[in-house]
C-alpha cells in the first residue's frame, strides 16, 4: 500500500484522536504514522487549531443588552432586569 493510502485511512480516526477518545491500538498506530508523516502532522495540528479558533470566537460573544431586555419583557420578567 502506498503512503497516501495509509494517510487516507487514518483520517477517519482523527476526530476521536483530537478528542482523546481513540482506542489504544489505533492511537498507537496513528502516532507511529505521525512521527513519520509531516503531512498528517499538519492535518492534526491545524484540525486542533480550527476547533480552538471557533471556541475562542464563541467565548467573546455575549448577549447584547437590548436583546436581553426584550427577552425579559417577553417572558414577563421585567422586575428581574438589573
Amino acid at each position, binding site marked *: 500500500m502506498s503512503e497516501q493510502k495509509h494517510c487516507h485511512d487514518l*483520517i477517519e480516526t482523527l476526530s476521536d484522536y483530537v478528542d482523546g477518545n481513540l482506542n489504544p491500538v489505533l492511537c498507537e498506530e496513528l502516532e507511529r504514522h505521525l512521527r513519520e508523516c509531516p503531512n498528517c502532522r499538519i492535518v492534526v495540528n*491545524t484540525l486542533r487549531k480550527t476547533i480552538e479558533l471557533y471556541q475562542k*470566537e464563541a467565548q467573546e460573544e455575549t*448577549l447584547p443588552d437590548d436583546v436581553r431586555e426584550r427577552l425579559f419583557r417577553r*417572558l414577563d420578567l421585567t422586575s428581574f432586569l438589573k
Partner: protein
Amino acid sequence: MNKSPVDEALSLDALRAGDRNEFARLVDLFSGRIYRLALQITGNTQDAEDVLQETFLKAFHALPGFEGRSSLSTWLYRIAVNEALMILRRQKVQFSLAEDNESNDEEKTEALQLVDWCCLPEDELQSTETRRVLEEAIQRLSPALRVVFLLRDVEGLSVKDTADSLGITESAVKVRLLRARLRLREELSAYFSERMEK
C-alpha cells in the same frame, strides 16, 4: 446524568414549581449560549432573537414536566435547535437531520490543504477578518453538519448529549463531526495559506 456546574447551581424544584426568580436566573445563565447557537444556525440576528424568546417561553411552560433525565442545558439546547431548524424549514432550506449523506461526503474526506498555519501570530489568527472567514465557513456547512459541530465543539456538549439534543445516534454525531471539522479545516487552511504567502 452528567450535570455541569452551572446546572447544579439552580434549584430544579423551584424551577418546576414556577418560581420566577429562579427562572430569571436560568435565563441569565443560558441566554447568551442559546442566542449564539441560534445565530449560527440561522445566520440572522432577528431569527436568532425569535429562537431565543421561543425557547425560554417553551421551557417555562414545559419545566413542571421536566424529569431531569438529561441535564437542563441539553434539554434547553434541544428546544432551541428545534426552533432554529423550524425557521430554516419555513425559509425552505432543504435538509433533513436524519438524512444519511455519508456516501456523498466520502470523497470530500480527503485533506487537501497541507499548509501549517498554526504558527501564525495570534493577532492574525483572531483578527476581524479571520472572524468573518470563520463565520462564512460555518455558514457554508449543511445544517446537519453545522448543528453537530456547534453543539459538540463550540458549546462543548458530549457526543451523547449532542446525539440526545438532535435525536440522532452517537455514531451519526461522530461521522458528521469529523466531516464538519475537516471541511472547516480545509476552508481555514485555504484562507491562511494565502495570508502566509504575503
